[in-house]
């Protein structure tokens, strides 16, 4: 392995890390702004212009808050919970292609930390690890509310992972590959997977909301019933870590959805732009397009949060097991039949 390769990856990882952190930080700002706009308010506007320094103020506040570790809790696990949640949420960004190969200083640099050929499986593995942060944190707190939140989080994630996996199987029938890079390449031109898999996308979207514990499926936190759920006992920066993990999860699932269903960094008229701008600046436009799609999804997440009330727990389970899973299976069958018929013709 040559040195230049290591340096290249190191730089890419660092940029991605900082970018993810800042997107998560500004998601908290955006969340308040969007909430305000949807409710005819103006939102944070005192810290800096348009309140843009608000995330810094929040971060400062989080750092200076008192760290309380409840006396009856398991201290080691209590710290491990939020750390794990944060760590796992970062892992997902590794396999997402943020752009085409870009030519920099005479080298062709892929804008993806690693293109493993089972990228989708990797994401699934990482996402299912995410629930451990919630479970450990909720269990270690030695608090009934936290435990309830943790149990809810676990059963909710297990239920929705099934439907999510099934919706992905239908997608894989179309794409024939598990690699994110190849899936993104295949959608070049107007072959976005949303056109072939509209039902699959809707199922995936609903499951993504459940997996990231966002409203309307935020039952693990559920302020009104569980006063914060798994993070009831958390304060200071550990609480911040959970919050950050949620926003990073949102970013990752937005990126996954944009890549799997909405063409990733592809956009109409891409070839013309690429040949006009060359191999360095062409892909930059692609990156911008990718991030626009991601931001659109993040906005969508927030928009739903400030529109839809929380589901009841039995409704959540009903929706997962009795509606989404049958629909996903039907989707697989229909997709398989259509593909076979089209192939035979």
């Amino acid at each position, binding site marked *: 392995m040559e040195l230049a390769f290591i340096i290249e990856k190191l730089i890419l990882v660092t940029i991605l890390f900082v970018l993810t952190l800042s997107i998560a930080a500004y998601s908290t700002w955006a969340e308040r702004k969007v909430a305000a*706009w*949807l*409710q*005819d*308010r*103006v939102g944070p506007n005192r810290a800096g212009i348009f309140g843009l320094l608000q995330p810094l103020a929040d971060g400062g506040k989080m750092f200076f808050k008192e760290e309380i570790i409840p006396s009856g809790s398991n201290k080691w696990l209590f710290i491990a919970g939020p750390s794990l949640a944060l760590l796992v949420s970062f892992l997902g960004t590794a396999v997402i292609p943020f752009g085409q190969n870009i030519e920099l200083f005479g080298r062709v640099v892929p804008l993806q930390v690693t293109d493993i050929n089972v990228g989708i499986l990797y994401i699934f593995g990482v996402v299912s690890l995410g629930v451990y942060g919630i479970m450990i944190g909720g269990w270690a707190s030695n608090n009934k509310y936290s435990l309830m939140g943790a149990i809810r989080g676990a059963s909710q994630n297990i239920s929705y992972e099934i439907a999510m996996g099934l919706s992905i199987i239908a997608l894989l029938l179309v794409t024939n590959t598990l690699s994110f890079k190849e899936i993104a390449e295949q959608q070049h031109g107007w072959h976005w997977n949303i056109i072939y898999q509209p039902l699959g996308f*809707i199922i995936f979207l609903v499951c993504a909301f459940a997996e990231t514990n966002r409203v309307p499926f935020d039952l693990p936190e559920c302020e009104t019933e569980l006063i914060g759920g798994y993070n009831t006992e958390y304060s200071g920066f550990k609480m911040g870590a959970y919050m950050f993990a949620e926003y990073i999860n949102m970013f990752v699932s937005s990126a996954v959805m944009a890549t799997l269903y909405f063409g990733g960094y592809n956009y109409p008229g891409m070839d013309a732009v690429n040949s006009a701008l060359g191999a360095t600046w062409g892909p930059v436009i692609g990156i911008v397009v990718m991030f626009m799609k991601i931001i659109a999804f993040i906005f969508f997440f927030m*928009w*739903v949060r*400030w*529109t*839809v009330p929380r589901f009841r727990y039995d409704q959540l389970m009903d*929706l997962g097991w009795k*509606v989404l899973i049958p629909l996903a299976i039907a989707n697989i069958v229909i997709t398989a039949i259509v593909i076979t018929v089209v192939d035979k013709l």
Partner: protein
Amino acid sequence: MESLSGRKKVLEQKPMNFWERMYLPAILKGMGITFMHMFKKKETIHYPEQEREFSENWRGMHSLKRDEEGRERCTACGLCALSCPAEAITMISAEREKGEEHLYREEKYAAVYEINMLRCIFCGLCEEACPKEAIYLDGPIVPADYLRKDFIYGKDKLVEMPIKELEALKGATV
């Protein structure tokens, strides 16, 4: 039973149909509504710069009044303190000396007059109790502060500005 108000609406409890059970159409409708709200006029009043218009009977910060000649009206009778349900008012009275007639209207006056704004509930009973029309809750919103001791307002903050100073101030701004 016949409804008394005539506005009773009987809701039918029928099981949800397929579309309702999918929740999606209803959610999309709701999202349409919230999206339109993004473009509505914002209701926010940017407080320190802008102020909401107060109603006629708004009760804000207290002010101790002066009469037409600029003398303090309060005679330290203590009725306001007695009527105060929050026990927010304390005062120390003093007798008017010779030569102070231009300062205090009655022979007795409040040397110290303090209202603890953290205790006050702005009920306005002090205003009602006062026989001398000396206290009114006609001021602005009591501002926030950092220390408890700064919420105990003394005469320096409560007593109305003397008329002369007020006129001087007006002259300066005109």
